[in-house]
């Protein structure tokens, strides 16, 4: 970017520079966003600025599950109605949103904030694994569900966690892998298909109550 262009005022150039740092924003998008903000009503621009500041000031990590939160412990961890004997381990905070959307899980979570990626030099010490093990000490945890992504790094992380957690006498489970809804059998890779065959389930007769499990 040409910072010293005389056609662009210094404060505006600075704003363009800041937008340019964001993921997925190129030089042209950065300029467009900056000029859009310039024409925005002052109140709206203030609100945006305030929201950014607030996020940075008030959001922290929950000391229990490491999710991003406003209050510590977070709303999931302090919810008395949730099952406190199950922990679902996920890679990123956004994964919790995905699982919560299903409304099929009522236990607790733990966010690792990444995956083991040996080739990128990301090891277990860079994740929130110590914090996870810490939780087994106090609470009565019966099951750990490994919900890391079904790719190479996610699998490596799941296998590593299994090594750590299994000896503690806690049941370790992994999310099922198989065919995605709306998927296409002929395009499935053999690992997925093998897993799908292994995890096949008996078809049940139509159930009037609609309860599947």
């Amino acid at each position: 970017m040409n910072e010293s262009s005389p056609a662009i005022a210094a404060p505006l150039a600075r704003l363009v520079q800041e937008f340019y740092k964001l993921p997925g924003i190129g030089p042209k998008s950065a300029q467009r966003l900056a000029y859009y903000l310039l024409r925005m009503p002052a109140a709206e621009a203030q609100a945006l600025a305030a929201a950014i500041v607030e996020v940075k000031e008030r959001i922290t990590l929950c000391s229990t599950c490491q999710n991003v939160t406003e209050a510590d412990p977070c709303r999931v961890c302090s919810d008395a109605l949730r099952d406190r004997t199950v922990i679902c381990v996920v890679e990123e905070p956004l994964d919790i949103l995905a699982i919560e959307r299903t409304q099929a899980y009522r236990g607790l979570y733990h966010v690792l904030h990444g995956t083991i990626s040996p080739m990128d030099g990301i090891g277990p010490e860079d994740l929130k694994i110590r914090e996870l093990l810490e939780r087994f000490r106090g609470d009565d945890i019966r099951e750990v569900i490994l919900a890391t992504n079904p790719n190479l790094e996610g699998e490596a992380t799941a296998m590593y966690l299994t090594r750590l957690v299994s000896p503690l006498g806690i049941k370790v489970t992994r999310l099922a892998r198989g065919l995605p809804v709306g998927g296409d059998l002929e395009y499935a890779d053999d690992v997925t298909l093998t897993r799908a065959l292994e995890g096949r389930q008996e078809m049940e007769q139509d159930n009037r109550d609609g309860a599947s499990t």
Partner: protein
Amino acid sequence: MATPRLYKTEAVILRQRKFGEADRILTLLTPAFGKIEGKARGVRKTTSRMSGHLQPLNRCMLQLAQGRMTDVIAGCETLESFHRLREDLDRLSESLYVAELTDRMLPERVPNYPSYRLLLDTLRRLEQGDGGEIALRYFEIRLLDQSGFRPELEQCVGCAKRIEAESHFFSPRAGGVTCPACAPDSEGARSLTLNGLKVLRQLQREPYNENARLRLDAPLALELERHLRSYVVCVLERDVKSAAFIDRLRRESQFTPAEV
């Protein structure tokens, strides 16, 4: 070699990195074109038909379209998925090391069929689980050979005299063994045992089948690993990151995993 706009090739996926919203850029090793990069569009969505086929360490048949910057993967099918490598953390960490080393040592777009063959053979050996240590050391020696960094094991890298079977040193900086007289001049040279030297020479001279029967005791295996790794780091001028994970797994398997 002029490649047509749309071309097909077999490839082993060495590594991947995220790109944009849902894309990945893959580093691929091909038999005919050497190491290339390919962009896989939309593979981070669950509905992607390609994502399962494009996992690292997979051997696939790919269809690529030439792009302005990187070629784009238009279609793919798994040929070999090494699933037993993926289900064992130790084997997985070793094969990631193999993939990373291959990626780092080879330049882009330089055809190198022997290295492709070596990579495939090594992954298969690791998957079979016969002689993990030997398979890795053989891989390192051969890859160094193929990329022009063959370590000198017959004569002293300092004074060019034949190495006598007494005491000898390995100097990663000078790229080979040194006699005791030259060792002090060679920075970073460390003692190499007679057995260590013998095994290194055999790995360098003989094909894998002759080496597969070798059994190393723990101290010897560790010695060879250290020497070869220090040489690799010296050649690359950087650490091999996945080696740290192999070390960590080994360290932790010796203790009860109560603390990380």
